[in-house]
């Protein structure tokens, strides 16, 4: 587990970049359901799969981030791009929040592919 920092230090609607083996982008988005939390934290590989750009610098719109360079959009929940120019999903990573602190589960998975995702999540 990689400590990311205090949840309160990530404003809702913003992202931070974490330097792991590969850079990871951690996003805090306004919660969509009423489970008591005001936000949900997601983590994906920071580097766009299209061409080199940091997704943490991208535009967050709901559960999607738009790459700051060529506007490729990725779903933070699945890592899937919603169309060109990206062709390949970004990896998603597990995030846990304990006592107001955010932790990342170190990636050990192989890069995600469309085939490896649950069927209902394939666009």
């Amino acid at each position, binding site marked *: 587990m990689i400590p990311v920092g205090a949840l309160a230090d990530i404003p809702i609607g913003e992202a931070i970049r974490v330097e792991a083996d590969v850079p990871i982008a951690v996003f805090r988005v306004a919660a969509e359901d009423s489970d008591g939390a005001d936000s949900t934290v997601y983590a994906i590989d920071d580097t766009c799969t299209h*061409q*080199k*750009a*940091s997704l943490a*610098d*991208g*535009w967050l719109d709901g559960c999607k981030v*738009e790459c*700051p*360079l*060529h*506007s490729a959009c990725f779903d933070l929940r699945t890592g899937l791009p919603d169309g*060109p*120019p990206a*062709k390949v999903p970004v990896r998603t990573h597990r995030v846990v929040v304990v006592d107001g602190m955010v932790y990342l589960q170190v990636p050990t998975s192989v890069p995600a592919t469309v085939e490896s995702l649950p069927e209902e999540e394939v666009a």
Partner: protein
Amino acid sequence: MTTSVTVVGASLAGVSTARALREQGFDGRLTLVGDEPHPPYDRPPLSKDYLAGTAERAELDLLTSADDALEVDWRLGCTAVGLDTAGRAVLLAGGERLVSDAVVIATGARARRLPGPTPAGVHTVRTVDDATALRAELVPGARLVLIGGGFIGAEIASTARALGVDVVVVEALATPLAGPLGADIGRVCAGLHADNGVRLLTGVGVERVLGDGRVRAVRLVDGRELPADVVVVGIGATPCVDWLAGSGLAIDPVGGGVRTDAHCATDVAGVLAVGDCASPYRRYAGGGLRLEHWTNALKQPATAAATLLGRPGAPSPDHEVPYFWSDQYDSRLQFAGHRVDGDQVEIVEGDVEARNFLAVYRRNGEPVAVFAMNRPRPFGRWRRDLAGRATAPV
């Protein structure tokens, strides 16, 4: 009722047109003509990662398996040589006539060359074959002279420098990039060359390239000779519209593109034009303006497809606020909006010397364009803000 469409040009604008037509429900016959033999590929990496050898050929491919569903009749390696508007036919070299209900012209642009014959070792970079040929000559210690300090020239200079090539850039203007960025920001960008050990000569033209068989030097108009093993000519691009001669389509006398309205329609019914070869009406320009931006080629086809299918909508924010980027050395340059001489430029964030800043261009006090060097996050906010202003009801 449109039941068949021929798209001429199989690069980003042509492929995006095919995708947009299918996305918008067109289920008729779709033919794509491309003069290069290669499957469609992305061009921006040709001066960057592909030239550097850090991106493989396959990474350039525009198509994925999802595009199989487009059911396109591909005519790759076929050159269009004429358009018969009355018969709605595209004429191919070899004599074939492709007849369809509508034609979308997406033939792009080609690199401008020096006049007359040139010796071996003189390159332009527009196609993947061009980039492959140049890459083979960018060996450590080679002496490269770049003719032209625009975006292509600067990107190739930066890639070549990282490969250990000895680079000189020659720019005819006093300040490189003064056209697109203005002199102030152009000067800052030009500083990247010196930061990285590349010599930049400005305000001097090239007389000719010297060498028998193989290039040996570049002679400048002031008499200086720059020894060269390799030369790249980066002096702009010309729209590929000569094949339309005699078709009756209006060509913009300024930019040389096919004239269209803001919805990509030419003045001939059923004939549209998109991408680098088109000069669509742009409100902010008060007339036709041809752009060679990647994002324009990616996004404009959605507008063309809607027009072709009889549902023209409002032009997209990308039409109103054009965007481009450039990667030079370790810096990322981004620009959005429309700049003209006389606009006031203000650095609103960061530090020019640190090569990390954001500048806003204002006209009559109103922001009209934004430039960022290594500052993507606030740039994205400004770009959206400009798009919101440009598309707001008047």
